[in-house]
């Protein structure tokens, strides 16, 4: 018998195969490794951000600051590199530490002042975007030899499928995330808080430390996502990545994670992003369909998964 908790994940996987299959049958050149790996490299930054969001949502929270943190990261990187001539390898640790601290502060406010995550991270979103636009309102190009090398780095497999640096980073993040979600005590605590924070506290789970760490991880990954994002754009812009938090949340939900927390898998989030990518690719291959169908389809998928979860929650096993 299929374990109930795998049902949403199984549906997600089937859905991806189905969509990819339909595309492959309909269009020449769709069902190739190249298209598949492009899904990964095009959406690497989203996967990284969505992995962070998965931790947050698994714990029953939400992080609306992700897109803003991505933009802020880009702006800070570009200013430090282009204006102050720092080496990227010095810049990266600095922004990663800064981003993590930002998330930790949000987590601390959420826990200690007992505020709703959505309003705190909403304020965080305004704060990060605001800081980004204070630093620079214009888009700043990043010109550094190292950046070119990193973004050009990669190799081909399976004929013409390209694995670039962003794909590599995103896969590494994914592996680490899977391990920490499913094979560490921290991961267990995240699920525990998402299941029932009260019971978790009664079972001796340190709520404060775990909550702060969860939001710190989300912000860390959002920062990393911002760095990867700048590999595509070679610039930092305070209005970049608007709405990425919504895409990330959608990916997590479509990936089969319960929005109220407690159930879900990291792999599901990957599949969620890939499904959104396939829909986009399908629409661009088709040519006659317009881009807004992506949003409508994603909205419909969101609804279906939320309704499915509601259904599964209601039909309790006897």
């Amino acid at each position: 018998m299929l374990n109930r908790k795998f049902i949403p994940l199984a549906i997600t996987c089937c859905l991806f195969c189905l969509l990819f299959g339909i595309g492959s049958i309909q269009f020449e050149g769709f069902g190739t490794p190249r298209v598949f790996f492009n899904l990964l490299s095009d959406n690497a930054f989203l996967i990284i951000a969505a992995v962070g969001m998965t931790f947050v949502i698994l714990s029953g929270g939400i992080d609306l600051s992700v897109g803003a943190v991505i933009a802020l990261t880009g702006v800070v990187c570009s200013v430090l590199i282009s204006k102050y001539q720092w080496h990227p390898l010095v810049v990266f640790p600095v922004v990663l530490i800064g981003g993590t601290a930002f998330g930790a502060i949000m987590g601390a406010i959420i826990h200690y002042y007992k505020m709703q995550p959505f309003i705190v991270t909403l304020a965080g979103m305004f704060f990060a975007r605001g800081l980004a636009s204070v630093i620079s309102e214009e888009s700043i190009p990043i010109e550094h030899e190292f950046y070119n090398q990193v973004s050009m780095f990669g190799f081909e497999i399976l004929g013409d499928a390209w694995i670039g640096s962003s794909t590599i980073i995103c896969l590494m993040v994914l592996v680490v995330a899977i391990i920490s979600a499913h094979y560490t005590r921290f991961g267990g605590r995240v699920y525990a808080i998402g299941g029932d924070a009260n019971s978790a506290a009664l079972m001796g789970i340190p709520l404060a430390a775990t909550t702060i760490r969860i939001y710190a991880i989300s912000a860390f990954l959002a920062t990393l996502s911002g760095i990867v994002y700048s590999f595509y754009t070679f610039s930092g812009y305070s209005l970049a990545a608007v709405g990425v938090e919504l895409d990330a949340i959608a990916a997590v939900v479509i990936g089969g994670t319960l929005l109220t927390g407690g159930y879900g898998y990291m792999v599901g989030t990957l599949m969620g992003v890939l499904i959104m990518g396939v829909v986009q690719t399908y629409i661009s291959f088709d040519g006659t369909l317009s881009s807004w169908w992506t949003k409508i389809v994603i909205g419909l998928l969101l609804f279906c998964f939320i309704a499915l979860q509601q259904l599964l929650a209601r039909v309790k096993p006897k």
Partner: protein
Amino acid sequence: MNLSKNPNLRRYLWPCAGLLVLLVINAIIAPEFFNIEFKDGRFYGSLIDVLNRAAPVALLAIGMSLVIATAGVDLSVGSIMAIAGAVSAYYITKGVDNLALIIGAGLIAGLIAGIVNGFLVGYMSIQPIVATLILMVAGRGIAQLINEGQIVTFDHPGFAFLGTGTFLGLPFPVVLVIITLAIVQLLTRRTALGLYIEAVGANPSASHYMGLNAKAIKMSVYCVAALCAALAGMIAAADIRGSDANNAGLWLELDAILAVVIGGASLMGGRFSIFLAIIGALIIQTLTVTIILSGIPPKFNLLIKASAIIFVLLLQSPLFQQQLAQLRFRKKATAATNNSKEAKSA
């Protein structure tokens, strides 16, 4: 009456004081701020501008304050604005001339969206953030679908009046806010609806024991919120004489939530006041003007707004209030010991 003792009056104190402080600051740094001219049958001046610019958020905040009173939140109002704008633009470009039909179509589009939200939250018991997220994402796509992704422009003086007209010397959007305020205020405070909404938000279980139908009440607040959003969306479309599904109402849901929170409402539900929500919207807009007037580059806008929100949120948190009280207590204590020392040395 003692102001600090009466809880109802005290609720009005802080937001009103906040707005007043901002206005005074504006008056100090730019004395012309309060100048109002009457020219060509309408008033002109910074204050009127503030009112006019705050109108869309004020409209959203009216609906949002009802939703938040039931311990919910509606993230989709920005998208509903886009849908309503797109629908009315669609009918105008299709040659419909009857203003009532155009506005009616926009409102009905909004109402449908509200029913969807109300159904998901009230009858399917999906968390409000999640339920309205669906329409927040899909709604913008639907708005684009209506006019096939084009930014449609139109020329319909009657409809444009919604955004740029003047009535009794006031910009028409401001008049619309006043009318909406009056209608919603009548609906909630001259019937028992307002009390029901507060009861469901304050204690759903006790409300159930008293026979309140929480599902229907939730449905109605999401419908009101969506109708307000639809009106705001049509004002925005009328203002630019076109419908831009991508940008109409973008992020305004967040401003609306903030307006309600700045107005002192608790996100946990319960008490609401649409006056305070509108004052919250005015504070947000006045703050923007204050930033411009004080010579701070507008790029600081968001940062200052964010700090203001965090500050207001902290003020509402019981723990923070406690910490403040302790701080004050400690100060008093040290002051007292200092005094006694001084007394001794003297």
